[in-house]
């Protein structure tokens, strides 16, 4: 059992480490940057987006498998991974809103990246509605997969290209360094030492949640088809 689920232990250990070390490590205090202790949110807010993108990427991958009919339950996998991805997206918005409230003065200030995140969530909510509107299982799998692939290709330019073209309160807008999420050069070694395990830990947690839901869905499906 231990052998089968080593990555669950890894998720547990990394997240414990994130929660303990994240609040204890010495954070940098560069002069003129009023981040202070709120930088610790960096270990929670930013990994949410990394996990969301990875989970939505997995969902996209299963949609391709669903179209190729390589995997009997691919549609369920795609659906559940998208759900977990959206869950992490909402958590990302929530953690971001708390941080923004202290740093920028209000939870929502219409920053291009905040808007981008909201668009992402809207796109995937439409995916759930579309999937729910079709009752026939074969048709649902196919149509949902087509939309998921399409949405994935529409979403990622929104998240990766558009924020670079405008000025932003986040790091990495127009005229500043770094990618749209964060400026890697600003991270000190201590930040990195907590940040990367945090990303892995949160992503594994997302995978864990997804696998549980997939098992439930498949069991329900089998029960329905046996009756």
């Amino acid at each position, binding site marked *: 059992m231990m052998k089968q689920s080593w990555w669950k232990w890894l998720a547990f250990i990394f997240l414990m480490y994130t929660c303990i070390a994240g609040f204890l490590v010495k954070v940098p205090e560069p002069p003129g940057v009023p981040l202070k202790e709120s930088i610790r949110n960096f270990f929670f807010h930013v990994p949410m987006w990394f996990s969301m993108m990875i989970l939505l990427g997995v969902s996209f991958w299963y949609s391709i498998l669903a179209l190729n009919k390589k995997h009997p339950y691919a549609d369920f996998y795609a659906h559940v991974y998208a759900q977990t991805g959206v869950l992490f997206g909402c958590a990302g918005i929530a953690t971001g809103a708390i941080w923004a409230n202290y740093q920028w003065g209000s939870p929502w200030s219409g920053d291009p990246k905040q808007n981008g995140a909201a668009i992402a969530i809207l796109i995937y909510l439409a995916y759930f509605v579309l999937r729910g509107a079709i009752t026939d299982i074969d048709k649902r799998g196919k149509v949902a997969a087509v939309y998921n692939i399409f949405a994935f290709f529409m979403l990622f330019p929104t998240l990766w290209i558009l924020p670079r073209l405008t000025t932003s309160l986040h790091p990495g807008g*127009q005229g500043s360094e770094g990618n749209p999420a964060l400026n890697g050069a600003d991270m000190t070694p201590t930040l990195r030492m907590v940040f990367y395990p945090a990303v892995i830990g949160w992503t594994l947690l997302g995978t864990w949640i997804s696998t549980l839901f997939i098992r439930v869905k498949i069991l329900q499906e089998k029960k329905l088809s046996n009756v």
Partner: protein
Amino acid sequence: MKKVSFLQTVIALVKKDAQLELRQQYALYGVILYMASTIFVIYLLHGRPEATMWNSLFWISQLFAATNAIAKSFLQESKGKLLYYYTISGAVPLITSKIIFHVGLMLCMNLISILLFALFLGNPVLYLPYFLLLSSAGAMGLAILFTFLAAIAAKAQQQAAIMAIMGFPLLIPQLLLLQKLSLVAFSSVVQQGFWQLWGTLLGFQFLVVALAVILFPFLWKD
């Protein structure tokens, strides 16, 4: 049997769509009337807006016009008819012809709505040729995206509503780009990263066409 080239098939299908549209003119007039009344309502509620507001209202009205004009395209044709086209022409020519036809339709709608906007809401556009070019590019983008979404929505129930739900979030990036690019038409400001924005806009449209052509065959393989 004579072998028909891809181009000939597409042309024949586009011609068929155009003829259908001209024969059932009530639908075409319906869309134009819908646009005119939208613009008239804006005029009643807001009078003559200033340039930036005019611009936003213009793109929103285009969005609604596109939803209405294109939603019916796949829905008006019965299942049997679509199967018939599919078997005689194949999926790729079918979606290509639909895209071309809707781009044409939206280009006409675009001209009509610019005219109506100028008539009801005044004309704050300083550089008209540029605005015509940009709004044509915008109309093209709307047409391409909604054609593909209409094809998806045709497979689900409550089609028109589903199309709006799917379309609006997916269109936001293009609308933002269009809104930024069109500001140049209203005053002699220099838009930062002007060519970059144009490149992104056209790149987006190319991506949608490519995805539509790749994914459409899967959608219709019943």
